């Protein structure tokens, strides 16, 4: 029997980055806020202390900080004419779980998108003509501009103590930064991190080829920092146990290290952890949310009434909750109608492995942070003329090797046997003198009509709800983009003096067992037109005006950068609209 709780002003579904940002903003407004989080609370000193944070098997191989597929998972197929099967063990992406969400175990690579990314269809059509766009692409403009988001990017960067070198301050290109970035109002709050040998050599090679390398913007502190909320972070120690791990010494920006200490002290804020929201409830009209239903760890069902609902449960869970709650028209790829599930994307990643003379090169790959690296942006977005190449999109590339953890870092020249004495010798010989950037080419994935989310007809979760079904495959455009980028990337390693450079192009079909970042995007996209978007430019649901949907589910397509910076900027942008306009006059903020 469902038990009803006293009403709250705001209920927040999922306490990750955007949930924490919205909770802090709305409690500052005096509202009574409850956050409901499916996973457990996570604390630095009790959950990932320096006693055992450095455990590759526990965290990277056995996935301790992530969602367990037994709790919920998705089904997957490449094409619409296939049957989807469950993702029984994670591979291609690692869904988060617990307070802090992905913010606990992210790399902390903190990028901004390009100004042109936000007006992608308009921009590309103007430059290349509509015919140049791939058939069946559903890319669209976002409904918000880079300029509008700039102060909110700044806010997140200063919340996090982002370490970096600015490239464009108010239109002035700065030496040592990214010359392609959109203009920013001021420098990063912290100087860039120091770079180990590998990235330094990469930058040298890149310069020799005429590129302008710059340090990757990093949410790992280059020095001790106190943020605008008076929360303190310590200096990163380059431990090499960053991504997929919690940070043991308060030096990686996360909700825990930047917001939660302040948030929990507020008397108008409360968290329920280990509680899974199963439904967003709406009234008879379907146009107004009345709150949520959730299930606690013992299986008891509860109803939490609220005036305002913030859905911040991570891309794919946002879409799932909208679908299961009957909010918004589900996308039908055949009829090309509906919006929930539409424009689902991931990232187009590839790597180049290079092998150097071990008597001359010692890279010490274990000295690294999650966002270490020197990068070039010449081939991102529309930073170069695509005309001769026949594809759109691009990405940054860099020597961004974030660790030398031995199970994951077994650099082996081609044709090395996978086991036996030769394998052993090759591992011994190459560990210190090889480079494996991992996500070295970090390319965009644009959206297509036949890449989408819907509900699976067969498989169910522990509450007997249908699992989300992912239909995804690479399109020719992305594979061409990646081949081109990978070739450019490899040239730099040759310039660095590698004996052997091995290109690992991204090849189709999209493989659910191969990790390709956790940058799932789309499915509940933002836009100016309710026919092709689920939420408006303030992330407010077109259908339910007291529901706002945070996260990368808002991205109409994914750009060639990690999404978190943009996810957080949009959250601050939306929060500002809620505080300044919505609360004074609840109702739709955009009228079409």
């Amino acid at each position: 029997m469902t038990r009803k709780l006293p009403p709250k002003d705001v209920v927040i579904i999922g306490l990750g980055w955007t949930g924490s940002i919205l909770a802090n903003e709305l409690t500052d407004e005096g509202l009574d806020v409850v956050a409901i989080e499916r996973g457990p609370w996570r604390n630095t000193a009790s959950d990932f202390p320096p006693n055992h944070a450095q455990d590759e098997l526990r965290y990277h191989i056995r996935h301790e900080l992530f969602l367990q597929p037994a709790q919920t998972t998705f089904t997957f197929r490449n094409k619409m004419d296939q049957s989807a099967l469950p993702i029984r063990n994670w591979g291609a992406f690692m869904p988060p779980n617990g307070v802090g969400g992905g913010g606990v175990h992210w790399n902390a690579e903190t990028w901004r998108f390009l100004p042109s990314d936000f007006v992608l269809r308009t921009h590309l059509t103007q430059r290349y003509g509509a015919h140049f766009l791939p058939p069946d692409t559903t890319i669209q403009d976002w409904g918000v501009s880079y300029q509008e988001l700039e102060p909110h990017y700044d806010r997140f960067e200063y919340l996090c103590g982002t370490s970096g070198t600015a490239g464009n301050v108010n239109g002035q290109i700065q030496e040592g930064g990214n010359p392609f970035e959109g203009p920013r109002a001021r420098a990063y709050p912290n100087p860039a991190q120091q770079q180990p040998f590998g990235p330094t050599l990469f930058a040298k090679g890149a310069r020799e080829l005429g590129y302008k390398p710059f340090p990757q913007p990093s949410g790992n502190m280059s020095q001790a920092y106190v943020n605008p909320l008076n929360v303190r972070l310590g200096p990163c120690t380059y431990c090499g146990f960053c991504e997929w791990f919690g940070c043991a010494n308060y030096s990686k920006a996360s909700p825990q290290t930047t917001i939660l200490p302040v948030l929990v002290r507020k008397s108008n804020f409360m968290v329920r952890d280990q509680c899974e929201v199963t439904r967003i409830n709406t009234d008879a009209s379907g146009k107004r949310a009345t709150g949520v239903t959730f299930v606690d760890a013992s299986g008891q069902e509860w109803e939490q009434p609220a005036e305002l609902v913030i859905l911040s449960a991570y891309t794919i869970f946002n879409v799932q909750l909208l679908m299961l709650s009957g909010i918004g028209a589900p996308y039908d790829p055949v009829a090309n109608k509906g919006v929930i599930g539409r424009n689902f994307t991931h990232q187009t990643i590839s790597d180049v492995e290079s092998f150097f003379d071990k008597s001359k090169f010692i890279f010490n790959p274990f000295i690294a942070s999650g966002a270490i690296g020197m990068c070039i942006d010449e081939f991102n977005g529309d930073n170069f003329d695509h005309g001769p190449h026949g594809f759109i999109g691009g990405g940054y590339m860099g020597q961004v090797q974030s660790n030398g953890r031995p199970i994951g870092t077994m650099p082996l020249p081609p044709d090395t046997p996978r086991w036996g004495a030769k394998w052993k010798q090759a591992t011994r010989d190459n560990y210190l003198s090889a480079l494996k950037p991992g996500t070295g080419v970090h390319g965009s994935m644009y959206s297509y009509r036949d890449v989408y989310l819907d509900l699976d007809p067969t498989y169910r979760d522990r509450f007997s709800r249908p699992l989300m079904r992912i239909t995804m495959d690479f399109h020719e455009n992305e594979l061409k983009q990646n081949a081109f980028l990978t070739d450019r990337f490899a040239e730099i390693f040759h310039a660095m003096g590698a004996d052997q450079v091995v290109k690992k192009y991204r090849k189709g079909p999209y493989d659910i067992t191969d990790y390709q970042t956790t940058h799932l995007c789309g499915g509940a996209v933002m836009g100016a037109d309710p026919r092709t978007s689920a939420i408006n430019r303030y992330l407010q649901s077109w259908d339910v005006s007291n529901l706002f949907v945070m996260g990368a589910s808002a991205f109409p397509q994914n750009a060639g950068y990690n999404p978190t910076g943009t996810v957080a900027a949009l959250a601050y942008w939306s929060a500002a609209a809620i505080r300044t306009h919505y609360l004074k006059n609840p109702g739709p903020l955009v009228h079409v």
Partner: protein
Amino acid sequence: MFEHTGKLCVAIAAGMTVTTLACGADFAQIERGRYLTIAADCAACHTAPDQNRPFAGGRAIETPFGNVLAPNITPDRETGIGSWSDAQFDAAVRQGRMPDGKRLYPAMPFVYYTHMSRSDVSAIRAYLSTIEPVHHAVVPDQLPFPFSIRASMRVWDALYFNAGEYQPDPAQSAEWNRGAYLVQGPGHCAACHTPKNVLGGDKTSQSFHGYSIQGWFGPDITDDAHRGLANWSLADTVDYLKKGHNRFAAASGPMAEEVTDSSSKMSTEDLEAIATYLKGQPAHTSKNQAIAAGEPMMVAGAAIYGDLCSACHKGDGTGVSYLIPNLAASSSVASREPTSILRVVLRGAPSVATNEEPTGPAMPGFGRDLTDAEVAAVATYVRNSWGHAASAVTPGDVSRARQSLAAAAGR
């Protein structure tokens, strides 16, 4: 809250007889009483944890002799102090005597509150009279025989209780005297920071030289360079008391509670006065010889420290200002007894969060991960590095510390 004295008097009169409180109690006195109640930290003992009933008593105060239950000091007439006269209240707080003539155990720190002025204690009484009366009968105390005989307090009082208000020292500044008053009186700092003899009386010749109490060592807070706070400026002390954190140290355990309930809410002037007074408490040790770096314990401790501790506390022990304690600058790691360092290493310790310093970083516990020998080695190393010189810690010390911590946790 207290806009009109008239309303206030009605509220008070509803709970008690007219003789208990002069209805002339004005807002200023009550406010002063509220502040002094915070300075004296009455809530620390008289408000039971996790209860929304301030000052209703019932909390078990652990003494080396057994448990004493703090009484209900709300104005309830039957179960609180609502029926007491002001003089009776004063006698309890400043002389350790109950209205029926029985003596209080020094779990109630009357030996320190005696230094307070009558007028200050009256103000406290005036404030307490405005608290919501709570009907909550507190079960009598649970000290075992022979400590259950209150009459024995007569002898104890004769030996260790020097009644009397604080007398300002004309040779010292007004600020120093104010600090002395606060420290000796409401702050009752000596309760945790001055060594005690076997019957629990202060060793007054060793004021503030530190005291081991319930798994923590209340450190030396004199101006001693080797054991005390000589390298703390007045601003450092004020920051620590106000914010719970300063350049060197973080308040955790008992001081976390003290900061939260008491000193973080005191005025900057008063905190500066306390700092001034403590700065005037003389140094009293000379430099000892540190254990040599080549000793096996030190070599092992250095290895453990470098592998396990340095990522937060840095190789040179200096930590991160306001975030990770500076072990090199912290004489409390080299205290006479290693109680605190063992407790913190074995069980970890969350630090206090205040409005100015909300981060509240925590030291993780290493008790499960390190053997007794390893804990002893790293504790010995820390106590004898970076200018410190203190006694070694043995595996036996560690084993005993584990046992007493486990016993305390079980309670």
